[in-house]
Protein backbone atom coordinates (compact mmCIF):
# COMPACT_ATOMS: atom_id res chain seq x y z
CA UNK A 1 0.00 0.00 0.00
CA UNK A 2 1.14 3.49 -0.74
CA UNK A 3 2.29 5.00 2.48
CA UNK A 4 1.64 8.73 2.48
CA UNK A 5 2.91 9.27 5.98
CA UNK A 6 6.24 7.78 5.02
CA UNK A 7 6.47 9.90 1.94
CA UNK A 8 5.78 13.11 3.82
CA UNK A 9 8.42 12.16 6.33
CA UNK A 10 10.94 11.54 3.57
CA UNK A 11 10.20 14.90 2.04
CA UNK A 12 10.61 16.78 5.29
CA UNK A 13 13.91 15.02 5.89
CA UNK A 14 15.05 16.00 2.44
CA UNK A 15 14.03 19.58 3.07
CA UNK A 16 15.89 19.95 6.34
CA UNK A 17 19.05 18.46 4.89
CA UNK A 18 19.00 20.74 1.87
CA UNK A 19 20.65 24.13 1.75
CA UNK A 20 19.15 26.31 4.47
CA UNK A 21 20.29 29.54 2.83
CA UNK A 22 17.84 29.05 -0.02
CA UNK A 23 14.87 29.80 2.15
CA UNK A 24 14.25 32.34 4.83
CA UNK A 25 12.61 31.72 8.17
CA UNK A 26 9.11 31.85 6.71
CA UNK A 27 9.93 28.88 4.50
CA UNK A 28 9.61 30.95 1.36
CA UNK A 29 12.27 31.29 -1.27
CA UNK A 30 14.33 34.38 -0.50
CA UNK A 31 14.01 37.47 -2.67
CA UNK A 32 17.64 37.02 -3.64
CA UNK A 33 17.14 33.51 -4.94
CA UNK A 34 13.96 34.41 -6.78
CA UNK A 35 15.69 37.35 -8.47
CA UNK A 36 18.81 35.33 -9.25
CA UNK A 37 16.80 32.65 -11.04
CA UNK A 38 15.57 35.37 -13.43
CA UNK A 39 18.82 37.30 -13.66
CA UNK A 40 21.09 34.34 -14.20
CA UNK A 41 19.17 33.48 -17.37
CA UNK A 42 19.72 36.86 -18.96
CA UNK A 43 23.47 36.96 -18.29
CA UNK A 44 24.75 34.51 -20.97
CA UNK A 45 22.91 36.34 -23.78
CA UNK A 46 24.49 39.62 -22.78
CA UNK A 47 27.96 38.45 -21.85
CA UNK A 48 30.73 40.66 -23.22
CA UNK A 49 33.29 39.02 -25.51
CA UNK A 50 36.01 37.04 -23.79
CA UNK A 51 33.93 36.46 -20.67
CA UNK A 52 32.79 33.25 -19.19
CA UNK A 53 30.40 32.79 -16.31
CA UNK A 54 30.48 29.69 -14.12
CA UNK A 55 28.19 28.47 -11.39
CA UNK A 56 30.29 26.04 -9.36
CA UNK A 57 27.19 24.78 -7.55
CA UNK A 58 23.82 24.95 -9.34
CA UNK A 59 22.07 24.97 -5.96
CA UNK A 60 23.94 28.06 -4.90
CA UNK A 61 23.32 30.61 -7.64
CA UNK A 62 24.63 33.33 -5.34
CA UNK A 63 28.19 32.03 -5.75
CA UNK A 64 29.41 32.95 -9.17
CA UNK A 65 32.76 32.82 -10.93
CA UNK A 66 33.49 35.18 -13.78
CA UNK A 67 36.47 34.54 -16.05
CA UNK A 68 37.67 37.34 -18.25
CA UNK A 69 40.14 37.09 -21.12
CA UNK A 70 40.53 40.70 -22.22
CA UNK A 71 40.87 40.77 -26.00
CA UNK A 72 42.59 44.12 -26.06
CA UNK A 73 44.38 46.51 -23.75
CA UNK A 74 47.19 46.08 -21.25
CA UNK A 75 45.87 42.83 -19.77
CA UNK A 76 45.40 41.04 -23.09
CA UNK A 77 46.56 37.43 -22.93
CA UNK A 78 45.70 36.95 -19.28
CA UNK A 79 42.79 35.12 -17.71
CA UNK A 80 41.35 36.82 -14.66
CA UNK A 81 38.98 35.14 -12.30
CA UNK A 82 36.47 37.09 -10.22
CA UNK A 83 34.35 35.71 -7.45
CA UNK A 84 30.91 37.33 -7.24
CA UNK A 85 28.96 36.61 -4.09
CA UNK A 86 25.44 37.79 -3.74
CA UNK A 87 24.34 38.52 -0.16
CA UNK A 88 21.00 37.41 1.23
CA UNK A 89 19.90 41.08 1.36
CA UNK A 90 20.19 41.34 -2.42
CA UNK A 91 18.87 43.41 -4.23
CA UNK A 92 18.81 46.04 -1.51
CA UNK A 93 22.52 45.30 -1.04
CA UNK A 94 24.94 44.87 -3.96
CA UNK A 95 26.93 41.70 -4.70
CA UNK A 96 30.51 41.66 -3.48
CA UNK A 97 33.28 40.99 -5.93
CA UNK A 98 36.82 39.81 -5.41
CA UNK A 99 39.53 39.27 -7.99
CA UNK A 100 41.08 35.85 -7.39
CA UNK A 101 43.90 36.39 -9.85
CA UNK A 102 46.80 38.56 -8.76
CA UNK A 103 46.78 41.60 -10.99
CA UNK A 104 48.55 44.93 -11.41
CA UNK A 105 45.67 47.26 -12.06
CA UNK A 106 44.86 50.79 -10.78
CA UNK A 107 41.33 49.80 -9.76
CA UNK A 108 42.04 46.38 -8.26
CA UNK A 109 44.43 46.08 -5.36
CA UNK A 110 46.96 43.34 -4.67
CA UNK A 111 44.50 41.58 -2.36
CA UNK A 112 41.84 41.41 -5.05
CA UNK A 113 39.63 44.20 -3.74
CA UNK A 114 37.76 45.69 -6.67
CA UNK A 115 36.89 49.38 -6.93
CA UNK A 116 33.75 49.70 -9.00
CA UNK A 117 31.14 52.36 -8.33
CA UNK A 118 28.06 50.20 -8.95
CA UNK A 119 29.22 47.81 -6.23
CA UNK A 120 29.14 50.55 -3.62
CA UNK A 121 26.16 50.57 -1.33
CA UNK A 122 25.12 53.70 0.53
CA UNK A 123 26.98 55.67 -2.05
CA UNK A 124 26.41 59.37 -2.35
CA UNK A 125 27.63 59.14 -5.85
CA UNK A 126 24.78 58.58 -8.32
CA UNK A 127 26.55 55.67 -9.99
CA UNK A 128 26.35 53.53 -6.84
CA UNK A 129 24.24 50.45 -6.26
CA UNK A 130 20.47 50.55 -6.66
CA UNK A 131 17.94 47.69 -6.66
CA UNK A 132 17.19 48.46 -10.28
CA UNK A 133 20.58 47.04 -11.22
CA UNK A 134 21.01 43.37 -12.04
CA UNK A 135 23.72 40.75 -12.25
CA UNK A 136 24.17 41.61 -15.92
CA UNK A 137 25.21 45.15 -14.96
CA UNK A 138 27.70 43.81 -12.43
CA UNK A 139 29.28 41.49 -15.02
CA UNK A 140 29.49 44.34 -17.53
CA UNK A 141 30.99 46.62 -14.91
CA UNK A 142 33.74 44.16 -14.02
CA UNK A 143 34.57 43.56 -17.69
CA UNK A 144 34.67 47.30 -18.29
CA UNK A 145 37.52 47.62 -15.77
CA UNK A 146 39.66 46.29 -18.63
CA UNK A 147 38.23 48.89 -21.01
CA UNK A 148 35.97 51.91 -20.61
CA UNK A 149 35.99 52.04 -16.82
CA UNK A 150 39.75 51.71 -16.42
CA UNK A 151 40.50 54.74 -14.31
CA UNK A 152 43.90 56.12 -13.35
CA UNK A 153 42.53 59.27 -11.71
CA UNK A 154 40.86 57.71 -8.69
CA UNK A 155 42.94 54.59 -8.09
CA UNK A 156 42.71 51.90 -5.45
CA UNK A 157 46.19 50.65 -6.24
CA UNK A 158 47.84 54.08 -6.04
CA UNK A 159 51.26 52.67 -6.82
CA UNK A 160 50.01 51.25 -10.12
CA UNK A 161 48.39 54.53 -11.13
CA UNK A 162 51.48 56.53 -10.15
CA UNK A 163 53.71 54.25 -12.17
CA UNK A 164 51.42 54.72 -15.18
CA UNK A 165 51.56 58.49 -14.88
CA UNK A 166 55.33 58.51 -14.46
CA UNK A 167 56.39 55.82 -16.88
CA UNK A 168 53.88 54.12 -19.15
CA UNK A 169 56.44 51.66 -20.51
CA UNK A 170 57.38 50.51 -17.01
CA UNK A 171 53.70 50.21 -16.11
CA UNK A 172 53.02 48.09 -19.16
CA UNK A 173 55.94 45.79 -18.49
CA UNK A 174 54.88 45.34 -14.86
CA UNK A 175 51.36 44.47 -16.03
CA UNK A 176 52.81 41.93 -18.49
CA UNK A 177 55.02 40.50 -15.77
CA UNK A 178 51.98 39.96 -13.51
CA UNK A 179 50.03 38.43 -16.40
CA UNK A 180 52.87 36.02 -17.14
CA UNK A 181 53.35 35.06 -13.51
CA UNK A 182 49.76 34.80 -12.29
CA UNK A 183 47.20 34.97 -15.07
CA UNK A 184 48.23 32.20 -17.45
CA UNK A 185 47.24 29.14 -15.48
CA UNK A 186 43.87 28.55 -17.10
Amino acid at each position, binding site marked *: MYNLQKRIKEQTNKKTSSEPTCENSTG*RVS*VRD*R*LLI*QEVNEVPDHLPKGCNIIFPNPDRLHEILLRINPNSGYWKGGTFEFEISVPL*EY*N*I*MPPSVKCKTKIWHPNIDINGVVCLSILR*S*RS*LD*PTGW*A*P*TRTLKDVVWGICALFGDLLNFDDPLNVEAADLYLKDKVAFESKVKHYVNCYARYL
Partner: protein
Amino acid sequence: MKVKIKSWTAVGTWEWVSNDDTCGICRMSFEACCPDCRTPGDDCPLVWGECTHCFHIHCIVKWLQSSQQQQLCPMCRQEWKFKE
Protein backbone atom coordinates in the same frame (compact mmCIF):
# COMPACT_ATOMS: atom_id res chain seq x y z
CA MET B 1 -43.86 37.57 -16.02
CA LYS B 2 -42.56 38.29 -12.61
CA VAL B 3 -39.11 37.27 -11.41
CA LYS B 4 -38.40 36.99 -7.77
CA ILE B 5 -34.74 37.25 -6.81
CA LYS B 6 -34.13 34.98 -3.89
CA SER B 7 -30.49 35.79 -3.33
CA TRP B 8 -27.59 37.39 -5.12
CA THR B 9 -23.84 37.56 -4.65
CA ALA B 10 -21.90 40.66 -5.58
CA VAL B 11 -18.42 40.31 -7.04
CA GLY B 12 -15.96 43.17 -7.38
CA THR B 13 -12.56 43.44 -8.99
CA TRP B 14 -9.83 45.94 -8.32
CA GLU B 15 -6.48 46.92 -9.73
CA TRP B 16 -3.82 49.45 -8.99
CA VAL B 17 -3.59 52.30 -11.44
CA SER B 18 0.10 52.86 -12.04
CA ASN B 19 2.23 53.74 -15.03
CA ASP B 20 4.16 50.48 -14.77
CA ASP B 21 3.38 46.78 -14.42
CA THR B 22 6.07 45.69 -12.02
CA CYS B 23 7.80 47.13 -9.00
CA GLY B 24 11.32 48.21 -9.95
CA ILE B 25 12.70 46.99 -6.63
CA CYS B 26 11.25 43.50 -6.10
CA ARG B 27 10.21 43.10 -9.76
CA MET B 28 6.94 41.54 -8.73
CA SER B 29 3.77 42.62 -10.48
CA PHE B 30 2.03 45.55 -8.83
CA GLU B 31 -1.12 43.44 -8.80
CA ALA B 32 0.75 40.99 -6.60
CA CYS B 33 2.21 41.97 -3.26
CA CYS B 34 5.83 42.56 -2.28
CA PRO B 35 7.90 39.47 -1.37
CA ASP B 36 7.34 40.00 2.35
CA CYS B 37 3.56 40.05 2.15
CA ARG B 38 1.04 37.33 1.50
CA THR B 39 -2.01 39.15 0.23
CA PRO B 40 -2.13 41.95 -2.30
CA GLY B 41 -4.35 44.96 -1.76
CA ASP B 42 -4.52 47.52 1.01
CA ASP B 43 -2.09 45.56 3.19
CA CYS B 44 0.65 46.05 0.61
CA PRO B 45 -0.13 49.35 -1.08
CA LEU B 46 1.74 51.23 -3.76
CA VAL B 47 3.30 54.63 -3.19
CA TRP B 48 4.43 57.30 -5.56
CA GLY B 49 7.36 59.63 -5.28
CA GLU B 50 7.37 63.20 -6.45
CA CYS B 51 9.53 61.95 -9.31
CA THR B 52 6.42 59.96 -10.43
CA HIS B 53 8.07 56.57 -9.85
CA CYS B 54 5.98 54.00 -8.08
CA PHE B 55 6.89 51.08 -5.81
CA HIS B 56 5.37 48.78 -3.21
CA ILE B 57 5.51 50.81 0.00
CA HIS B 58 7.39 48.01 1.77
CA CYS B 59 10.02 47.85 -0.99
CA ILE B 60 10.76 51.57 -1.10
CA VAL B 61 10.85 51.84 2.69
CA LYS B 62 13.31 48.93 2.85
CA TRP B 63 15.50 50.67 0.28
CA LEU B 64 15.31 54.08 1.96
CA GLN B 65 16.20 52.55 5.32
CA SER B 66 19.25 50.84 3.85
CA SER B 67 20.62 54.09 2.46
CA GLN B 68 21.60 56.22 5.38
CA GLN B 69 22.96 59.38 3.90
CA GLN B 70 20.57 60.37 1.20
CA GLN B 71 17.18 59.10 0.21
CA LEU B 72 17.14 58.64 -3.53
CA CYS B 73 14.67 57.08 -5.92
CA PRO B 74 16.33 53.88 -7.19
CA MET B 75 15.02 54.58 -10.68
CA CYS B 76 16.01 58.17 -11.35
CA ARG B 77 18.17 58.91 -8.29
CA GLN B 78 16.41 62.13 -7.56
CA GLU B 79 15.78 62.81 -3.93
CA TRP B 80 12.86 60.62 -2.84
CA LYS B 81 9.83 62.49 -1.53
CA PHE B 82 6.52 60.76 -0.98
CA LYS B 83 3.86 62.28 -3.15
CA GLU B 84 0.98 63.54 -1.03
